[in-house]
């Protein structure tokens, strides 16, 4: 009984720590980064003023601090705004939709291994074998938030946004799931922690070579050597894996409603898209939900292709987790994971401020004519290569 309680307590601490200490601040600062990076791409400066308001306490000058306090000001602004519910909406679903947009992204985080271990505890909230399936199942629930918002708003622009979101999801979910099947064929498991362990031994799935010495451990699982470090098959295998990375990343852009696939909210066509009728904190939940989905998407990409928390040249296993160095190493692994996620988020932002929006039929064509076929053929290519690796 105490063991169950202890397990529940530890899981709770991990969940709350992950969400409140890492993900929510990361969401706010992704918004800040988006504003600063977009500004600099457009030769502007972005928010660089909000800092420590010393003038409020009677001092002469504020400290600008690169505008890093901007997210706090934004949150205060959104909380203080009038929360307006129009008369013509379906109240129940109207109130439900923002929660539906935010919650799934948080839930999907449960299976992501965001660190090796800390004090002997594996840094993953739920180490379950369905792993990636859970991520796909839950993150596609996020579309319900958008559809419900579009439908319950009882207004034409949100409705169009909701419809677009539905069809966009149908076109992209397939290639999203199909594109990563090669990974599961290679690793032989759906468990994300196992996939990461495979990558610590055999190299990140995105890299074509893996030099001996980067990993301090012999290149084998269960004493059976599967891939040599410089084996030609690793380079051959890299080609379909790279294709699968490209397809998966682009599908992730569509999944998270980011430009160039942000059709559900297309400001230029649909006013505000699905959140036209929303204000104040309900709008903020949609907004934060989009960024949380981005973070989860990046986390999945990092886990599947970039070796999650693995840092080259650093030991992967922590021998004695209770010593000082064991804890430090665990923290370095967590930091490495989120640095990789942050870099991918920068890519998301960079792409958003470069590419124009795809037309609706172009998006459908891309999804149905190209990505599903590419992903399927990719699966077969890997299936052909794999038997030669397991001689």
């Amino acid at each position, binding site marked *: 009984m105490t063991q169950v309680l202890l397990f529940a307590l530890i899981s709770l601490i991990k969940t709350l720590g992950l969400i409140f200490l890492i993900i929510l601040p990361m969401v706010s600062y992704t918004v800040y980064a988006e504003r600063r*990076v977009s500004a*600099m*791409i*457009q*030769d*502007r*400066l972005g928010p660089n003023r909000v800092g420590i308001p010393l003038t409020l306490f009677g001092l002469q000058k504020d400290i600008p601090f690169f505008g890093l306090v901007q997210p706090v000001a934004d949150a205060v602004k959104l909380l203080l705004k009038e929360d307006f519910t129009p008369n013509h909406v379906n109240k129940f679903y109207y109130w439900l939709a923002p929660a539906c947009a935010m919650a799934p992204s948080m839930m999907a985080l449960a299976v992501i291994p965001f660190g090796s271990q800390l004090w002997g505890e594996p840094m993953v909230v739920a180490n379950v074998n369905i792993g990636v399936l859970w991520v796909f199942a839950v993150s596609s629930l996020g579309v319900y938030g958008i559809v419900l918002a579009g439908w319950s708003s009882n207004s034409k622009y949100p409705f169009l946004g909701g419809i677009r979101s539905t069809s966009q999801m149908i076109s992209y979910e397939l290639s999203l799931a199909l594109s990563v099947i090669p990974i599961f064929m290679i690793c032989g498991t759906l468990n994300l922690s196992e996939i990461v362990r495979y990558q610590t031994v055999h190299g990140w799935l995105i890299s074509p070579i893996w030099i001996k010495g980067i990993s301090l451990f012999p290149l084998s699982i269960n004493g059976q050597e599967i891939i040599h470090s410089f084996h030609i098959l690793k380079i051959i295998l890299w080609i379909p894996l790279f294709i699968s990375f490209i397809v998966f990343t682009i599908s992730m852009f569509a999944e998270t409603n980011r430009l160039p696939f942000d059709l559900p909210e297309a400001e230029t066509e649909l006013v505000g898209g699905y959140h036209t009728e929303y204000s104040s904190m309900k709008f903020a939940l949609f907004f934060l939900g989009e960024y949380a989905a981005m973070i989860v998407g990046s986390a999945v990409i990092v886990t599947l292709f970039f070796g999650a928390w693995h840092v080259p040249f650093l030991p992967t296993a922590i021998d004695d987790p209770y010593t000082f160095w064991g804890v430090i190493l665990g923290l370095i692994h967590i930091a490495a994971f989120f640095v990789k996620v942050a870099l991918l988020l920068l890519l998301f932002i*960079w*792409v958003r*401020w*470069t*590419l124009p929006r795809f037309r609706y039929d172009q998006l459908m064509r891309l999804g149905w004519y190209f990505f599903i076929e590419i992903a399927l053929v990719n699966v077969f290519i890997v299936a052909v290569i794999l038997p030669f690796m397991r001689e």
Partner: protein
Amino acid sequence: MPYTVSRPKLTFSEKAYFPAIFAGLGITLRHFINILSGKKKVTMQYPEEKWDQNLPAHYRGAPTLVRDEHGRERCVACQLCEFICPPRAITIHPGEIPIEDRWRKVEKFPQEFQIDMIRCIYCGLCEEVCPEQAIFLRKDYAITGLTRQEMVHDKKKLYELGGVMTGLVHKWNDKK
């Protein structure tokens, strides 16, 4: 006459999107790095950096009254500026110069001269119409106040902003 515009034939690399996408990413990255490293500077951070030194000679800022080189007020309260002012920002209460005064020839002076800076549109017609060259648009542009009353410039404030402007004005010349 209707005519057909032939669609451009796209090459394979154009159809494949990727070359164009990477070219675009390169352009945005270049802009990002140039601004980040400070190699290119576009924004002037206003309250800290100002453009005041580079204001052109013809810049139209706040309208002010000026004195001449003898410290005499130039305005003769002819009220032409009051009449021409499109938003009616100027109010003048003319007074009479007493008969024993040296400048009785001029007859009038402004007892009170007010410019409502909330109304003023900085068009410069007052300066243009003034026969005595008594009103000039100076280069002050940040006219602020906490109350409406504060935003009405009275005679004292106008002379304070205007200062001295030298130059011949015939009206004040005894010989003319």
